[in-house]
């Protein structure tokens, strides 16, 4: 029992560290990538090639003056960013990072913190709690811009969650009716990745993921042209850092979810042939590590696409955002669901 807890604890710490590390370097890569897209050089002063820039940024955040407005609700003011950060980190628990492996004495360890059989639901639930962080933070600031940003954020999240949820339902039907992420990824092991069966679903999910993570072109909650800083107008020091940082963790997790849902997670083309050629047995730790590498590559590509979109597209107007969410994505996702159900019924995979 104790070893089980210990192993889980170690896995937790590793996932935690990876999420934070990736988020930290995503902030650097965001600046570097935007520079590359704009023919600039980007940060290259802190350490070799600017690699210590995230440390410098973090250090700066810690040493900034911490301001809590007099008129704010102090408890909620502190709760907001904490909640946002916690929910961002919580989503990483159900993602299967790699295949299970078996050690010499026959114990099996998995590259996943926990496999709940309602993993997809858990994910959607935790993500929608994330909006509470923004909402509470924005409201507790007692500032009209912060409040407007928070309201925008919550209405945006609620609007896009519906289309996202419906596109996930279509995915779950294709995946054989399982809500466990491990099974969704495992089911793509032998056959094609889900993107082949759900191209429209993926597109909807991707657009919704952009909106859920408050990334451009849907970054209206922190629209600096209209709302000063949006929901984090009154925040300073590391509390602001938490808000900004959690956005990158969200981006990392949603990239991971998209690769797991639609691009086969740790699977990659000709994986079995490669393992066979390398002479690896089933359950070898190397299979898990190579799979993790493949998964990670997909995540990095997705993060790059996120940034590429951010530095290409202008921000949506608020009515355009709502039009897109309710009048286009929602009907499209319903259509996608109807087609999926029809096709699966004709294939005889659905039973009533």
């Amino acid at each position: 029992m104790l070893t089980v807890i210990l192993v889980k604890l170690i896995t937790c710490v590793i996932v935690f560290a990876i999420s934070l590390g990736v988020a930290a370097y995503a902030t650097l890569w965001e600046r570097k990538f935007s520079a590359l897209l704009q023919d600039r050089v980007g940060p290259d002063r802190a350490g070799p090639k600017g690699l210590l820039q995230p440390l410098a940024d973090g250090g700066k955040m810690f040493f900034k003056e911490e301001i809590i407005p007099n008129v704010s609700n102090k408890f909620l003011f502190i709760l907001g960013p904490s909640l946002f950060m916690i929910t961002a980190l919580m989503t990483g628990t159900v993602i299967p990072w790699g295949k299970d492996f078996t050690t010499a004495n026959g114990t099996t360890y998995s590259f996943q913190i926990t496999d709940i059989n309602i993993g997809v639901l858990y994910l959607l639930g935790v993500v929608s709690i994330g909006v509470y962080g923004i909402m509470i933070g924005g409201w507790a600031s007692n500032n009209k811009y912060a409040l407007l940003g928070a309201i925008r954020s919550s209405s945006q999240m609620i609007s896009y969650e519906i289309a996202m949820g419906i596109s996930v339902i279509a995915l779950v039907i294709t995946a054989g009716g399982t809500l466990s992420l491990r099974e969704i990824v495992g089911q793509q092991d032998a056959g094609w990745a889900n993107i082949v069966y759900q191209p429209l679903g993926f597109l909807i999910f991707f657009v919704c993921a952009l909106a859920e993570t408050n990334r451009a072109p849907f970054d209206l909650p922190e629209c600096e042209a209209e709302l000063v800083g949006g929901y984090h107008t009154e925040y300073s020091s590391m509390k602001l850092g938490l808000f900004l940082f959690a956005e990158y963790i969200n981006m990392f997790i949603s990239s991971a979810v998209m690769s797991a849902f639609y691009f086969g997670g740790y699977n990659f083309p000709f994986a079995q042939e490669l393992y066979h050629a390398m002479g690896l047995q089933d359950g070898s730790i190397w299979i898990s590590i190579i799979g993790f590498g493949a998964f990670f590559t997909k995540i990095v590509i997705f993060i790059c696409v996120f940034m590429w979109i951010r530095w290409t597209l202008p921000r949506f107007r608020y009515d355009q955002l709502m039009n897109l969410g309710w009048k286009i994505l929602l009907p499209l996702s319903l259509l996608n669901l109807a087609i999926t159900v029809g096709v699966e019924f004709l294939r005889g995979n659905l039973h009533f």
Partner: protein
Amino acid sequence: MKLTNRSKVVSNKEQSFTERLYLPGIIKGMAITGSHLFKRRATVKYPDELRPIAAVYRGQHVLKRDENGAERCTACGLCAVACPAEAITMESAERKKGEEGLYREEKYAKTYEINMLRCIFCGLCEEACPKEAIFLTDRIVDTEYEREDFVYGKDKLVEKVDKRIDVSKRQTLEVAEFKKIPGLKHNEVWKGNKLK
């Protein structure tokens, strides 16, 4: 009136279906930004790498000393007269006995100030100088916090005896020839020097 060929007539016509899809437009935009990933960076990382500058670059001035280390400037004021920006002021003084090693002529500049904010680095002072005393160099004027600090006195302008500044690039042959005219005898030092 049409001024350029770039002007476009604004149209309010309804978007076509492909335009309303946004996706083709988005992909087109991303292709444009993506192509910039492979373009050459325009940045010059300034303190680490310098842009090549002309050999006759007109930067911060120097007040030359002669080969014995005496100041060449005689405070005639021709540079101040030639200066179109009125950046140069000076006060003259008479050379005392025993100061022959410090000042070449009997009269010298007690103070000599150039306001680097007024200066337009045209090089007319250099052209006007009959004593080959003032030259523009390839050095760049430092940045300062206060406006007063841009008024450079003799402490910054006169070259150090042990740290001579090479101005041979700006000493064109034509000028040297011109200054060899009898009556401009003080330039004779150049005969045995760099220029013949």
